[in-house]
């Protein structure tokens, strides 16, 4: 309810400013009255009367109307005034009241100017980057594994901690660091599928920028290769959870239905002395992946018989819960023998002492294991199917006994004797004669329907009939050639993955697509929040044209923010916003800062940065998942730390054992009362990556704070910047601190402007050494001076005072953060014209205390993103 009022307000706000703009005559006099006298007094000399410095001639303007033709100039004037850059220090200065009055009027004028010149900037088509491509493919097929493992996604989640729907981060998260950690890239993924190279981020921006994501023959080759290698990966079928909806031959029952199950009575759990699973099998293919013959799920007490490869052994496998744990045992079998197209008998037994495996009546393996069979479940034992490990080929006459049959008994069963051990037989399953399904429609028609459904998802909007025909006819050709339904469908899918409609994030302008604006919005939403393609629900709503309805849209945003796919947003936005990749290459000097390294030497050993990097990222995720005010990114009463990090901040890291677990790191939520820590800024990660090998770099830190926290990257330094010569030795000799040294350096007028802005931001953090640990004094013994003034108005003594100053300027921080988010969400660099939207989004979000979700939601429903009137 509150929301719809808000939208009303927004519209009213826009309308009111439009009416103002439409009537400039009213304010025309105002110009001469309000600002001309001040400009005359303080600006005209250099800008028009005597000189025209910086190509700015202010004397040209005599009314608001004139001035408002140049919004960029007004923007420049505001920037110069806000930053106290103009008038220059050595010139006569307006009073603070005059300055404020100028700013107020110029801001109003700028808004009028922007509104009257406002056009919604259309979204530009761009290709997906490699992060998005991997997500899109995974979601398209509902894969049970990654497409490829890439370091773009830094946090590896080892205990499913990320559950946004709960609104709570667990107290302990078990994580790894993909980019700096040990073997974190070895994870379940499609085999033989190679990612294309990582797309670099834009300067002070993100890697989803339309103007950067172009296409070239070299890249196209990768895309073409991917389109084939994804669906033909050896383990694709097994991991494809949407297999039955797309690839499954409709004349054949899917494995799960083709084979039934064996239902047993309660005697299994009470009277079992062991277990025997006996089966006749005729596999149609013998790849390395496991194929289930029979399996009953019951956590570690599961029982199974299967063929396939584990490690070096291709063989027959049996698994059962014995003496309180799951035991799995396999015997080597030649896949060629078993896959020769003839029927074979296989069996696995456990009699309380031994596990035995049999092929065609002969024992092929035996494992001594003493203990009671743990057999509680009376769930049906499923035949030939288990998740992604279905059986290919035929099964028959599967029998389950509640005792371990003997060698002789197995031989008799293999010879065809049906009467063996009937007293302990608890169930059996026989193949239906009629395996082939009767189709109600021609097979091609079924295929075409599936293709239409699939293309909608892959292309993010409905394809026209001509396009659809291209793909369905391709299917027909392939199917007529080979007669293999699944492979023909895979060929169609390969073409789809190479299509521009899949590879590009696009906004179609054609009205021939019904509800195209809704589909475009669905694509923008899923790119922004999921870095992926829209899911079925979004597409369905788009198809009904409902997505642009504010209430529906808000509902969807909520749903999307609660969906686990939103991890992609955290994985993509947060590290880029924080420029956290700089930590990968941070190299404190190995000799003098040995404790940053775990062992070995500086080339091969692991770095503390591996842990550090995760702290700010987890803090970001906490603010996100728990919908906290974004100000907690600056100052929070909690943080996530590993044991190692906790000790590190306490200065005890040197005592830490070398052989720590580098793969699964437990990070624990740590309540904080010490405000020197918490948030993202003062984390070890940020401190280390803004330091050099020998000392902290205040300017680099200031530049980081300015870019990241205030979204105001400093201008590039001028040429002729001499080396600071601030190594320990020189400083010792000169008896200066870095700060004093820098003061000498930046007193140069040319440099002073910028340094006045960035230096206080960097020196505020000077109490953290190059390894992120607190220090009161430098190594030279001189005291650290972290005092300063934020934006020329908030004095602070130390970093806590600095945090207070940032919090006092929370609107500035919030706007800066919104600009980062908006630029990311729109996939483009912001322009001056976007200022109105940023202000409006900030204003709305302020009402909700700048809570993370409110901020995101206000971006999404704002016209700049939603573009409801899109034609």
């Amino acid at each position, binding site marked *: 309810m509150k929301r719809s009022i808000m939208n009303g307000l927004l519209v009213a706000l826009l309308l009111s400013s439009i009416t103002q703009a439409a009537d400039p005559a009213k304010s025309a006099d105002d110009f001469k009255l309000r600002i001309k006298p001040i400009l005359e007094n303080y600006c005209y000399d250099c800008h028009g009367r005597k000189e025209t410095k910086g190509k700015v001639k202010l004397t040209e303007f005599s009314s608001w109307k004139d001035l408002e033709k140049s919004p960029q100039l007004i*923007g420049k004037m505001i920037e110069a005034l806000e930053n106290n850059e103009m008038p220059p220090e050595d010139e006569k200065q307006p009073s603070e009241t005059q300055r404020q009055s100028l700013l107020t009027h110029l801001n109003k004028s700028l808004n009028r100017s922007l509104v009257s010149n406002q056009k919604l900037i259309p979204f*530009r*088509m761009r290709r997906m980057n490699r992060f998005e491509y991997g997500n899109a493919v995974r979601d398209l097929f509902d894969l049970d594994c990654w497409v490829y493992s890439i*370091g773009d996604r830094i946090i590896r989640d080892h205990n499913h901690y990320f559950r946004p729907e709960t609104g709570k981060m667990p107290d302990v998260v078990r994580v790894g660091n993909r*980019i700096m950690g040990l073997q974190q890239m070895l994870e379940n993924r499609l085999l033989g599928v190679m990612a294309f*190279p990582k*797309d*670099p*981020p*834009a*300067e002070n921006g993100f890697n989803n920028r339309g103007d*950067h994501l*172009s*296409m*070239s*023959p*070299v890249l*196209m*080759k990768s895309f*073409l290769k991917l*389109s*084939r290698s994804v669906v033909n990966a050896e383990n694709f079928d097994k991991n494809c959870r949407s297999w039955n909806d797309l690839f499954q031959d409709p004349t054949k029952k899917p494995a799960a239905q083709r084979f039934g199950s064996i239902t047993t009575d309660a005697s299994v759990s009470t009277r079992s002395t062991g277990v025997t699973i006996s089966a006749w099998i005729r596999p149609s293919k013998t790849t390395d992946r496991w194929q289930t013959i029979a399996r009953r799920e019951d956590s570690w007490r599961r029982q199974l018989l299967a063929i396939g490869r584990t490690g070096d052994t291709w063989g027959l496998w049996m698994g059962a819960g014995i003496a309180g744990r799951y035991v799995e045992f396999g015997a080597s079998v030649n896949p060629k023998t078993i896959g020769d197209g003839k029927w074979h008998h296989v069996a696995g037994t456990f009699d309380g002492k031994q596990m035995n495996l049999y092929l065609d009546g002969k024992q092929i393996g035996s494992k001594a294991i003493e203990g009671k069979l743990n057999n509680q479940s009376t769930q049906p034992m499923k035949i030939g199917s288990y998740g992604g490990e279905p059986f290919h080929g035929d099964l028959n006459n599967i029998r389950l006994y509640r005792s371990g049959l003997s060698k002789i008994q197995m031989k008799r069963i293999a010879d065809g004797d049906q009467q063996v051990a009937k007293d302990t037989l608890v169930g059996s399953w026989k193949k239906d004669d009629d395996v082939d399904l009767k189709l109600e429609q021609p097979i091609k028609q079924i295929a075409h329907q599936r293709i239409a459904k699939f293309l909608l998802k892959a292309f993010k909007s409905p394809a*026209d009939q*001509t*396009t659809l025909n*291209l*793909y369905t006819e*391709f299917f027909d050709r392939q199917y007529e050639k080979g007669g293999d339904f699944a492979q023909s469908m895979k*060929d169609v899918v390969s*073409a789809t993955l*190479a*299509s*521009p*409609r899949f*590879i*590009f994030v*696009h*906004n179609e*302008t*054609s009205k021939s*697509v019904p509800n195209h604006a809704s589909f475009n919005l669905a694509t923008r939403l899923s790119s922004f929040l999921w870095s992926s393609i829209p899911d079925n629900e979004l597409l369905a709503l788009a198809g009904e044209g409902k997505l642009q309805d504010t209430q529906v849209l808000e509902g969807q945003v909520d749903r999307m923010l609660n969906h686990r796919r939103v991890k992609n947003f955290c994985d993509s936005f947060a590290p880029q916003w924080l*420029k956290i*990749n*700089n930590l990968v*290459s941070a190299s404190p000097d190995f000799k003098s800062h040995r404790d940053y390294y775990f062992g070995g030497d*500086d*080339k091969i050993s692991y770095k503390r940065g591996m842990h550090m990097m995760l702290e700010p990222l987890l803090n970001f995720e906490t603010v996100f998942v728990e919908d906290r005010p974004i100000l907690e990114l600056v100052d929070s009463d909690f943080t996530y730390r590993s044991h190692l990090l906790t000790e590190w901040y306490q200065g005890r890291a040197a005592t830490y054992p070398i052989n720590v677990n580098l793969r699964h790191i437990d990070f624990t939520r740590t309540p904080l009362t010490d405000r020197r820590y918490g948030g993202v800024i003062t984390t070890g990660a940020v401190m280390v990556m803004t330091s*050099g090998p020998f000392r902290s770099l205040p300017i680099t830190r200031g530049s980081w704070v300015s870019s990241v926290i205030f979204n105001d990257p400093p201008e*590039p330094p001028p*040429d*002729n*910047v*001499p*080396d600071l*010569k601030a190594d320990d030795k020189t400083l010792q000799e000169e008896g200066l601190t870095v700060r004093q040294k820098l003061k000498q350096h930046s007193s140069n007028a040319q440099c002073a402007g910028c340094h006045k802005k960035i230096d206080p931001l960097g020196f505020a953090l000077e109490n953290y050494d190059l390894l992120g640990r607190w220090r009161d004094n430098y190594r030279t013994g001189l005291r650290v001076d972290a005092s300063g003034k934020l934006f020329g108005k908030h004095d602070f003594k130390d970093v806590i005072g600095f945090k207070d100053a940032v919090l006092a300027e929370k609107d500035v921080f919030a706007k800066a953060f919104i*600009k980062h988010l908006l630029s990311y969400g729109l996939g483009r660099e912001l*322009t*001056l014209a*976007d*200022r109105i939207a940023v202000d409006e989004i900030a204003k709305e979000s302020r009402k909700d205390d700048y809570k993370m979700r409110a901020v995101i939601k206000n971006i999404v429903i704002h016209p700049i993103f939603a573009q409801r009137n899109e034609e």
Partner: protein
Amino acid sequence: MKYRNHSHFNRRKFLYGAGGSVMALPWLETVAVEGATTKPKEPSLRFASFYSPMGFVRDHFFPEKDSQDFLSMPTLSPLKKVGDKVTLITGLSRVNVRGVDVHNQCSSCYLSSADPHGPLKSVYPMDRTLDHLIADQVSHRTPIRSLELNCNTFKDLKESIYLDNISWYGPEHVATSIKDPRHVYQTLFKTGKSDKDITDLILQDASNFQKNLNHHDRDKLDEYFTSVREVERQIEKLNTYYKTHQKADIQEPGDAPMTRGEYIRLMGKMLVLAFQGDLTHVATFMLAPERWGTPQLYHELNFTKSHHGLTHAQGQERVKKMLVQVDRFYVELFAEVLEQLEAVQEGEGTLLDHSMITLGSGLGDGEHHTMNELPIIVAGSANGQIKTGRVLHCPENTPLANLWLSQAQLMGTGLERFADSTGPLKGLLG
């Protein structure tokens, strides 16, 4: 917020745009001529541009004014073996556009050297780069249009696209470079299978799709069209090529770790083979990316240092010593490529004689970010046209674009102006 006016650049036909006359000579004809008994055609010229970031320490690179003895300069002495085929050029400059980052311009604008006073087509004064203007003209001769090699192995990839690329189809349209030696190998020495079933289909799909798009997005889609066609074209041409040519004698690179030197050497070796076998006649080669604060392990020099960091602290003797080693390291690797080209006999000369291989940097002085007095070496005489084995002293602030114009002309583009050129480089031709 800074407002930037991105003027619209037409991306259409980015592979065969400017030059226009694609396939004027069907490629097969050249092959036929080579095999014929008549007097062999004049050998084709090869063009390569090597880039080394952040300049070279000047007092180790440039000899005294008026001196011709560049081979005794510490950084250039590795060129001794091929010294008579090398020209050192002094006095070349570019103009830095103020207010935007210097390093980004160094690399991304190096080979276009677009007029800094003209309208900006992107954040930086970018344009279609020299290598592509040349490829427009000569690519019909070879199965592969051009080769963009890049020896950046940094894992962090924290820096922008501009610092990592010298070869651009146009403003904001990067010619993707290849960093993985195996990828280079596969591009050059494996024919690949045409996937016509799929490419035919997606091209039709794309042309249906195009109708739904606005003007700007159609240009974007054109990148796609052109790329798909180029992939197919390349496969076709390579297949034809390998019917009459032997595969070069080189093994597919494996997974074994390589030192910095071994890696660059391998990339260089493949470039030489590509030129030798007429697989391509146009290449760019980044020895390392511009700026990139990340420390680099130089196995051969036995230290790990940020090249960028070294250039800024070169005021200190100790640092300068290391920096000079890095400079020399890259020149040595460059010299090795030249020596290999020189070792290939081709008609009456060597492959090097039939080439024009430039090594240069977009910065004159890494400490002070100046773009005057750029370090530029041109090797090979372009078939006897360039006078080599000497220093060509140009007047101060001679536009780098003059050299690029000369090179474009030598490669037969017929261009009369190049960016802010004032004319072909005086005194280059012998």
